[in-house]
């Protein structure tokens, strides 16, 4: 059964680690990071990649539903497997429900090193604001963006050296006026995506030659 993967660049580290753990490696099409604020753009890029898949029985999506960008996607002669999570953060934490639970005692802005490599990440936003408007206005901007957050949460997905990145995370947290926190995470969901089973409660499996519609992500 030939399988392929459509993946977000943000998850590159975690996907490489999951591939090593599962022993599988698929033909992969990548989509650039940072499009979660632009669901229409993201959908277009996903569709462009999907339209290039031929000869596969299944295409696995290393994405969440990402702003409902998956709604409207069309499959070719393949099934499309979509994790039932809002975004990659919930995938790494384990589920949407766990993500909500983790954030119960103060809003957490989650990140990974992969996320920080993306063009339009939070630190890039801050740096841009400092350069264009100065530190005072940048602080105002960050207060607007992060005023309801308490923590900057580094997801420890066990595929990178946390101690190596902690100093830069600490620096960011200090500048953004957040408290640094390490959140246990894993690539279990990604491993499940790569090798199955693709059970109904964790994955939406879209039939060949159809459209993702009448689907909404439900919180259990």
């Amino acid at each position, binding site marked *: 059964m030939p399988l392929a993967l459509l993946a977000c660049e943000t998850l590159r580290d975690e996907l490489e680690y999951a591939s090593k753990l599962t022993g599988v490696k698929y033909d992969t099409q990548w989509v650039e990071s940072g499009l979660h*604020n632009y669901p229409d753009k993201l959908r277009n890029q996903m569709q462009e990649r999907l339209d290039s898949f031929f000869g596969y029985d299944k295409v696995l999506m290393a994405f969440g539903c990402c702003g*409902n960008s998956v709604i409207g996607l069309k499959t070719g002669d393949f099934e499309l497997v979509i994790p039932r999570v809002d975004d990659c953060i919930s995938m790494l934490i384990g589920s949407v429900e766990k993500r909500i639970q983790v954030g119960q005692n103060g809003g957490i802005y989650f990140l990974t090193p992969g996320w920080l490599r993306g063009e339009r990440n939070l630190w890039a936003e801050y740096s841009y604001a400092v350069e264009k408007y100065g530190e005072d*206005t940048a602080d105002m*901007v960050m207060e607007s963006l992060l005023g*309801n957050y308490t923590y900057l949460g580094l997801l420890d997905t066990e595929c990178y050296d946390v101690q190596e990145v902690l100093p830069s995370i600490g620096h960011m947290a200090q500048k953004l006026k957040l408290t640094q926190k390490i959140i246990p995470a894993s690539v279990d969901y990604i491993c499940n995506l790569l090798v199955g089973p693709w059970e109904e409660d964790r994955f939406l499996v879209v039939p060949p030659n159809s459209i993702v519609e009448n689907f909404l992500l*439900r*919180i259990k």
Partner: protein
Amino acid sequence: MNEELILAMSRLDEDKVLEIVRTMRGQGMNTTSIIHALNCGMLTVGEMFEKGTYYLADLIVSGSIYRQALSVISPENESLTEQTENMGKVLIGVVKNDIHDIGKDIIVGSLRSEGFCVVDLGINVPCEDFISAVVEYKPNILALSGTMTFAVDEMEMIIKSLNEKGLRNTVSVIVGGISVNKAIAERIGSDYYSEDPIETLALCRKLILR
């Protein structure tokens, strides 16, 4: 001068925007035209953000400039339009498990400056609190905001709950946020979908004045 104001707003030139607004007010120009020019500038800002030219920081700065311009036009808490009657009541909040409120806050500020009575329930508002507030405040419009993908599920629950409690026909529902679009809004039973604060303001005006 309108064109200059639109350009200054779209370029996020705070000093220029405030200078032009002061001049226009000094010349006795009506507030509706000034606000219209500001809104046109804000639409351009939104388009530039969509294109990737502007960052989130620029969007937030545009909101700040907009609010400052409104406060130059008129003292605090006074309606900025020639219509002095209360424009109607809007109940607004960010749905449960969501704490993103930038868009909501811009909408609240804009609506209040146009004379709307706005009840702002804040963030992470559970369904039952929305329903209680509809019963208590009897708003003309219920505006549901949410950024997270799962916010849509919550919005649908609120609309279903309005139906179950026999309140659905008492209020017009508008939904908005990154994870919502027109098709999704229709599917979950919302009356309207709004893409941005400017559209929300225009929609609320239309709904109250009809």
